[in-house]
């Protein structure tokens, strides 16, 4: 399979990249890892005339802790770099685990967190856990930067609020009071499969009482979604198996799955019940964020 012709640019700064995007309009696409974009181009699903590579923007490939802000992950950080980052393993192991269960080793060495978010695939693995942890993203445009909660970023399959002149530059996981979090991906194979259902939870426990919970679901709605009714059902409650079952039922009721080749809507809905329950149990028992 071959790629159609395109113009290739390798801007040396974020400003230059945004200016190029502003000038080129919809004819241009941003190239990060390329694991998704290049395949879509091979199939003729998209045909950008201009590719703007982030290759030279080294400032987008770091992971660091910024006091007062939280853990800041550059948009060009690869999935394997997330898995192997000591800082994330110590502070947000659940994010490393989510990255580790994506695609396969070769793809994880190339694909990036920014690309995973920008593509806005409903079954993407990183958005649910990042949303559960309250992450936000920084968008840089020709006229400056703005920050946005990740859960507000998606508008539909493949659609986001990104402006034509903007690129995602960083993902910020703020300091939080969570005592446990996890992401459970339910795919049909252990490797190289998209999620049939993905459930991410973050909880703040005080003894056996759940003071706060955030539950984010992947692959069961047009966008990664918060299960706010399920969150309300567990907040302030003493945790028991019966409660977790009831919370699972809540999440199953509020999700909006479709039927496709990976599973029917009914099946997905019931799996949301099961995996919400399991994810909460895991986050509560393992006690690491």
């Amino acid at each position, binding site marked *: 399979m071959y790629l159609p012709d395109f113009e290739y640019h390798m801007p040396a700064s974020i400003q230059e990249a945004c200016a190029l995007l502003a000038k080129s309009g919809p004819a241009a696409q941003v190239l990060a890892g390329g694991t998704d974009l290049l395949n879509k181009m091979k199939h003729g699903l998209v045909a950008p005339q201009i590719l703007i590579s982030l290759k030279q923007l080294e400032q987008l490939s770091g992971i660091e802790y910024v006091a007062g802000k939280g853990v800041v992950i550059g948009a060009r950080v690869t999935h394997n770099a997330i898995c192997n980052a000591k800082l994330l393993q110590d502070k947000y192991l659940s994010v490393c685990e989510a990255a580790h269960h994506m695609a396969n080793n*070769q793809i994880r060495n*190339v694909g990036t967190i920014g690309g995973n978010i920008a593509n806005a695939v409903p079954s993407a693995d990183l958005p649910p856990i990042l949303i559960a942890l309250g992450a936000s993203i920084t968008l840089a445009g020709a006229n400056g930067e703005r920050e946005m909660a990740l859960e507000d970023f998606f508008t539909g399959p493949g659609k986001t609020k990104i402006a034509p002149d903007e690129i995602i530059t960083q993902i910020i996981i703020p300091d939080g009071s969570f005592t446990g979090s996890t992401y459970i991906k339910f795919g049909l194979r*252990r490797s190289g499969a998209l999620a049939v259902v993905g459930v991410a939870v973050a909880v703040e426990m005080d003894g056996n009482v759940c003071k706060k919970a955030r539950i984010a679901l992947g692959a069961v709605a047009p966008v990664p979604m918060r299960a706010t009714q399920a969150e309300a059902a567990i907040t302030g409650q003493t945790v028991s198996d019966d409660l977790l079952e009831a919370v699972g039922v809540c999440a199953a009721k509020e999700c909006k799955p479709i039927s496709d080749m990976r599973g029917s809507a009914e099946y997905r809905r019931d799996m949301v019940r099961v995996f919400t329950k399991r994810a909460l149990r895991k986050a509560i028992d393992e006690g690491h964020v």
Partner: protein
Amino acid sequence: MQALVDNNGITRYLVTIKINGDEYTRVVKANTLMVNFIRDELDLTGTKKGCELGDCGSCTVLMDGKPVNSCVVLAVEADGHEITTIEGLATNENLDKLQESFVDHAAVQCGYCTPGMIMSAKALLTKNPHPTEPEVREAIAGNLCRCTGYVNIVKAILAAANE
């Protein structure tokens, strides 16, 4: 990276990529995929093309020591990087111990997945010289063998590690 425009207005780029220890400077178009650069430009046809979508792992090469699917990497993006292909493993007349082990354990059936399998295994053993069987299986999870000869492949990798 220098851009060159020909008389027809087509832009090409001067890339320098170190492959198997040798630096190659070539003129490529922006849409040249790494796998085609390796196979067509350098005639290193050990790297195979399977799905060409990053799913099957036949085209696995090491880029700066890490296994990647060369069918989803542009040659221009690899400018300045270091690539190892299956041809780069043997030294002089001696096969790499992984290659020897694949032969010894009959881990090669039709052979099409073998170069990619070995490159994934090579990256694993470099990082983790004594992997467990689950670690081996996970390392080659992105390499499909349609002869389904996984048992002997795993045996060969484990044996090479324990040599």
